[in-house]
């Protein structure tokens, strides 16, 4: 009876631990402000899947390994649908989280059909060095390959005066690129 109680208690603890771990690992990413917002004309991303490149600048926050260090991050802004506001836009870093290689958007249907891991035919981002694939429709979510996570995301503040304003980047990106 005592052993059963003990076992039950241990299982309960294990369950609680698992849940706590899941919560920690699913925690939303922390974002950090860019040194100055990036503004991109809304017209330049009017056509879906035609990315507009940009560079975002940020500094490593206090408590990081090299606080105050300036970091420049290459990104792309692109439209995922035919809406004409900010709702269908996505802004992502095009530096692979795995080994800092360049990631590019692939939209050519013939090439998409040949790419391993792609069964949807939807546009994908691909790392040229180690071939990780990311879902362009899902804000760069990881699909396959050696990258340990999806693409780093910029945050879009909104649209003002005909320009898209990008004002934040995932903090983790700064210590990886």
């Amino acid at each position, binding site marked *: 009876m005592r052993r059963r109680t003990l076992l039950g208690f241990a299982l309960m603890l294990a369950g609680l631990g698992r849940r706590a771990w899941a919560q920690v690992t699913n925690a939303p990413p922390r974002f950090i402000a860019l040194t100055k917002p990036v503004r991109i004309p809304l017209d330049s991303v009017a056509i879906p899947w035609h990315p507009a490149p940009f560079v975002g*600048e940020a500094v490593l926050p206090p408590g990081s390994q*090299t606080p105050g*260090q*300036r*970091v*420049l991050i*290459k990104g792309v802004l692109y439209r995922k649908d035919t809406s004409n506001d900010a709702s269908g836009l996505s802004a992502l870093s095009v*530096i692979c*989280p*795995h*080994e*800092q*290689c*360049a990631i*590019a958007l*692939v939209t*050519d249907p013939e*090439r998409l059909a*040949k*790419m*391993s891991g792609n069964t949807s035919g939807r546009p994908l981002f*691909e790392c*040229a*060095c*180690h*071939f990780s694939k990311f879902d362009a429709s899902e804000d760069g979510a990881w699909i396959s390959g*050696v*990258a*340990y*996570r999806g693409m780093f995301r910029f945050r879009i503040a909104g649209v003002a005066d005909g320009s898209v304003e990008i004002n934040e980047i995932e903090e983790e990106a700064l*210590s*990886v*690129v």
Partner: protein
Amino acid sequence: MKLRQLTLIFAVALLATFTLKAQTSGNGQGGYWPTTAQTHEKLYVNSGEGDVNNLTIIDVKTMKIIKKMTTGKHPHGVASPKTQDVLYIASETEGTVTKLDTIKDEIIEVYGGWGTEPQESDITPDGRFLYQPSYAGYWNVFDTQKKEIVSYIHTLGIGHNTLIDPQGHFAYLFPIKGGPGHWRRPSLGLPRTQPNEVTVVDITKNHQVVGTIPVGDGPRPPIMSADGKRIYMDVDRFMGFLVIDTEARKVISKAAMNLTADEQAQVPNGHAHGIAIGNGGKEVWTNATGLDAVFVFDVTVTPPKQIARIPVGAGPYWIVPSQDGMTMFVACPASDEMMVLDVATKKMKTSFKFPAGDHPVRMIDLAVPVRTQVTSR
């Protein structure tokens, strides 16, 4: 007790790789071996993506494609012995090593059982032992005569790059440090850490580890001087390379790329990737992948002095010299091209375009015997 546990873990790992049968080859960065007979210089370019035709064989004299072939997916290691009549290509996705006849450009055999993701190998000059690293954290030593693995060498880090000296005496094992993405791959029960060192193995003493060389951070692609006295090695978090004295077994200097403040901000955690020796051993060329450039250093002085910077295609990732050391081939997977650079003028001679999405990566330049004479097979 601890020793017994470690022994058990390693034994399990050995069993996991027991299916093997393998063969070996080469010196990851061609151009070491003087040719003694009539040869045909060919460049073997592995494309990273694509299930078919992922090996392009180019006639170096004319820069025309001789043949396209299919080897294992995601090729990562290339090695060929002194005779250069065979080539071994490791496929990290399929876990195989393909042995190729470079005279006929035909596949001889495909071997499996290398453990997690076989990486960049090297082979003794006589072609006897292939040192084939596995991502799990060890090297397989494959006896090409017996066609069996005769030793496993565990280095704690992720098995990644290999060099064997021109005398066939010492092997240098370069485990990369890795990070979150790397640890997801199976370790086959072996403990893995980030050792920041090069492991030295005496090939002549039954493949015994005889020393380590601390390098301060994770080793990246290396290359060895023709006399075996120097190793030039890219390293994590450094835009440049280290110079290692192989006799003293220590780092003796560093060569840093001259970068602007904006360039430094683009690659604050970056490293060079791909390194080659040219111009009779006087120059070392290395890629700045994130900056789309190749940097050239004079290594006749200490520390090495930057003498040129050459813009290339997107994401330069691998570089190999021609047999005479006067041409450099730079694979740029992000723009699907290979740049051909002139060592004397430090300018681009031509570029070679691959189909979109091919992503050329690792290469080797071989002086292939024209007739079958002495071979390593």
